[in-house]
């Protein structure tokens, strides 16, 4: 009574595989870049593509140097490149940007031991740029202009400088323009953060198709909101300005760098959101996402170990109904 040994149950799959997940993310990010390009700067989209393909090329070269063999680059590296391109000023000089990309791809993806440290590669690259290339990272230029003759500011920059909260309605729809009292020319920030509504839309699609988990994003927004309320920051403005929504959808949900357990994701997301809000309020930088996300990443392995041990303890002690009692 023979039984086939090569294939084992389950003979059923739900959801797409890893590559499919990454391509879905990349598709959403590419559409986000295209949207920014259509509304504000026609020259941006080719630059975005250049960064994505450069990331792949870098991974191929680094892989060749490291392992001595040629391998197809991964879709996830494309996602890293896309996220980085969408989170820096649209007119950032290319050479520093590619340096940041090299840090993200080489150090962030290929070298860091993912058992010991689970760091978001894009955030690593962005941190590198913030420290080493601080000036280009804060150079917001209107499309078609090479020199800023008028002081320009993003909505978040305006708030940091003058304490003025830009219209929430316009922020949601990405309608950023005009000037503030003839003093500041208002410009959109990084391309990814332009239209939070679009990011939320793609977030829902990615959740619905099983690509993303909703918990880290909701936890991030919740932690952020609580601290905003405690520190009496204008909540709606801060949720919509900068890269909060973009981070909630695309960055804090990065599976590799956040805890795998549900409890861990809640804790990490909330902590990242809280730190982001605190840095925005107290820190030098108008945006605090990098620090919040990195702090959560550093604790990810510990949070997972803690959650695993706690589950075992609850099973031994109580035999309670699980979170999904059905």
């Amino acid at each position: 009574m023979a039984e086939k040994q090569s294939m084992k149950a389950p003979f059923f799959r739900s959801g797409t595989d890893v590559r499919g997940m990454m391509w879905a993310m990349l598709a959403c990010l590419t559409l986000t870049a295209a949207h920014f390009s259509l509304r504000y700067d026609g020259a941006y989209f080719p630059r975005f593509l250049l960064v994505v393909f450069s990331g792949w090329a870098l991974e191929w070269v680094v892989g060749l140097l490291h392992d001595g063999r040629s391998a197809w680059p991964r879709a996830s590296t494309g996602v890293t490149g896309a996220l980085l391109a969408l989170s820096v000023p649209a007119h950032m000089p290319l050479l520093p940007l590619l340096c940041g990309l090299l840090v993200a791809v080489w150090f962030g993806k290929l070298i860091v031991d993912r058992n010991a440290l689970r760091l978001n590669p894009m955030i690593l690259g962005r941190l590198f740029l913030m420290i080493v290339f601080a000036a280009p990272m804060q150079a917001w230029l209107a499309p078609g202009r090479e020199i800023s003759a008028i002081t320009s500011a993003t909505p978040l920059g305006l708030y940091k400088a003058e304490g003025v909260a830009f219209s929430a309605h316009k922020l949601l729809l990405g309608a950023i323009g005009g000037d503030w009292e003839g003093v500041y020319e208002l410009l959109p920030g990084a391309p990814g953060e332009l239209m939070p509504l679009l990011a939320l839309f793609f977030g829902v699609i990615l959740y619905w198709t099983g690509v993303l988990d909703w918990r880290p994003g909701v936890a991030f927004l919740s932690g952020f909101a609580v601290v905003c309320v405690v520190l009496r920051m204008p909540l709606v403005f801060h949720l919509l300005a900068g890269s909060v929504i973009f981070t909630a959808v695309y960055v804090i949900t990065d599976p590799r760098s956040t805890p795998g357990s549900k409890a861990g994701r809640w804790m990490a997301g909330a902590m990242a959101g809280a730190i982001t809000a605190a840095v925005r309020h107290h820190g030098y930088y108008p945006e605090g996402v990098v620090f919040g996300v990195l702090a959560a990443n550093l604790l990810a392995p510990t949070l997972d170990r803690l959650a695993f041990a706690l589950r075992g303890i609850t099973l031994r002690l109580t035999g309670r109904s699980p979170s999904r009692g059905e």
Partner: protein
Amino acid sequence: MRRTIPSRTGAPSEAPEALTPSPSDLAFSLDAEGHRGAMQVCVRAGDAVLSGQPIAEGEWQVLHSPLAGTVSVSDARQVVIQCSTEQPDWCAAPMPLADKSELPDYLRAMGLVGMGGGRFPYARRIARILERPPHTLVINAVECEPGIGIDESLMIHQNREVFAGAEAFKNLLGMRRCVLAVRRSTRRHLEPFLENHSFDWLEMPDRYPGGAGKLISAKLSGRMPRAGMLNSDLGFLISNVASLWAFGRRLIEGRPSVDRPLTLLAPDAPPRQLVVPLGVSAGHVLSACGVSFDAARQILVAEGRLMGRAVERDYRVGKGAIALMVLNRERRWERPEAPCILCGSCFDACPLGLHPIGMANRIREGRSSRSLEAQLNECFLCGACSAVCPAEIPLVQVFREGKTWLKNKA
């Protein structure tokens, strides 16, 4: 994440059909693990056997020949019967029960086991709870494995036998309540056919593994049975529809457990509900039903997509075979394992809130801990975590090895 495993939906199941033509031979493995206990053969090669005649006996169940024929092979490992071309009709004679003390012997003699896939002998199960019977009988008609509809078919078209078995358990064991556990989508299929019966409905979700006994217990009592604790310890006797059907047939017609109701699934064909004799080969079932099978492009699966196994045409239908499926091979099933990306899909899929990838990593690294033992003991190998893993990590196989590893360590 929305990575769920939907159960079968669609039109109500058709009535179960008898398998024709009858097979030319039947074969029975006497493997102790498959029968949950050692079996001793009680016929010899060359013996003539009648339909319903015992051919092997164990401490908790008897195995019978479904059809009349001649024993061609009889040894410690298997019994093979060459079936007669002429099969006399079954001579129905009711075999009622008077008292609960008769139940264990009765169930042993008829060879009743858990026919939802567990195959646990009912005689042993009932003997354990005779002194303190449960208060609630649960008819488990949830049938959460994707594509399978045989329980629904029996509930619609042969519920007389099902409820005969259920009433007998309820009355003999003095249970106060009878609950019918179904999926939300199948309740409307069943309601018109069950109006004359008295029970409470329990709706479970339309996804796998909604029909697991532990989950039904947890929903009824608000408390999950701990590892080592049985559902009966919480006061529930959870019984699969096919098991009650077989028990009812014994009571009404005197027929022992010799038939297996199952769903036959094939690509591009509607599912068929069949009643086949135990020991029939999968190849005979396929050819009798006109189902082709190309081993190069397809795979033959017994017992379900999630908890079943790939078999060959010479696979013999046993008491736990709830389905036979011809499935087109999918490349993803054979794809090599990729590194885990910690997407958390397995955490979401696990119905018990366990940490599948955490368990798998610790098992592979040989890192035992009390938390690992506690979680591994809870796991009932439903396979939901493996089905949703985008990296094709064979989680359920790792857990199976892990359970053996822990058992050897203890």
